[in-house]
């Protein structure tokens, strides 16, 4: 028996509810794994004035959903700091796609994530996290603010709620399937 793993990236700005969403649907409490960067990996300007700082630890939260006895889905939250793009590359490599969480109080914090997946042609859905209360914007306004392509699904979710978070994942997989050539 072979065992296949499938990845989904959960992205969005700092504090948009990534780990909350992972925790809502994961069959295990979210785990944290770390990548350690040495000074050479970090931009020179990043250590200016931070004497003695030679190492940076980037934490990644993730969860798991066993789909069948031979297929398991992993949900990886992107690191809180947007600048570690090479870690995003590692997460996105071979992934089904991404759920980009959006906090309507701070739409701009999710723009780097939208931009990242759009530029690379990686399927993603934009999920407005309702946790933050009444949304002041219409779907059209959110799309315009985030420069979302018309074909990118925009959905509403509550990252604390399992059913709602599950729907966001289902939305992503459907979208990824729809974009796939039928002959594949």
């Amino acid at each position: 028996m072979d065992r296949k793993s499938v990845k989904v990236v959960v992205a969005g700005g700092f504090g948009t509810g990534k780990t909350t969403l992972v925790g809502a649907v994961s069959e295990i409490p979210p785990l944290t794994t770390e990548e350690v960067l040495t000074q050479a990996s970090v931009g020179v300007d990043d250590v200016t004035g931070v004497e003695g700082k030679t190492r940076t630890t980037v934490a990644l939260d993730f969860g798991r959903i066993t789909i069948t006895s031979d297929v398991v889905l992993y949900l990886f939250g992107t690191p809180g700091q947007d600048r570690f793009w090479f870690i995003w590359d590692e997460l996105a490599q071979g992934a089904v796609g991404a759920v980009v969480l959006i906090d309507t109080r701070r739409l701009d914090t999710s723009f780097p994530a939208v931009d990242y997946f759009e530029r690379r042609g990686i399927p993603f859905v934009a999920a407005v996290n309702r946790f933050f209360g009444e949304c002041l914007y219409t779907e059209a306004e959110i799309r315009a603010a985030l420069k979302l392509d018309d074909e990118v699904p925009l959905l509403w979710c509550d990252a604390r709620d399992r059913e709602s978070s599950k729907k966001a994942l289902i939305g992503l997989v459907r979208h990824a399937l729809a974009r796939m050539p039928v002959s594949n």
Partner: protein
Amino acid sequence: MAYDVWDGDDEAQAGRLVPLYILVNGRTSPRNTNLDLATQVIALPVDPSRLELEYREIIDRCARWISIAEIGAYLHRPLTITKVMVDVLLEQGYVRVGAPAQQKIADRRILETVLAGLERL
């Protein structure tokens, strides 16, 4: 002078004094580039008693299929080190790995399986 190596101080509570990079002979990336943080690993029925403790700890976690990311999380090891150590175990025939996380050209059937699985949850 700045250090540019992992000095292993996360392991200090366990009394560990050897930097982890020594265990992987200074390798900084796995030779098997298909290894991904979601790659599934399982131990093969081989006696691991000759291995160093740090490798045996990995083998102990792999009685059932487990991802590289989970091994790193449970053993509190940085991801890259975990990946390299799994790669060493793979080369030496102690473990086997599952299919790499979806390749560039995604497999439609797997996505359909995932979709059906999520809808069943």
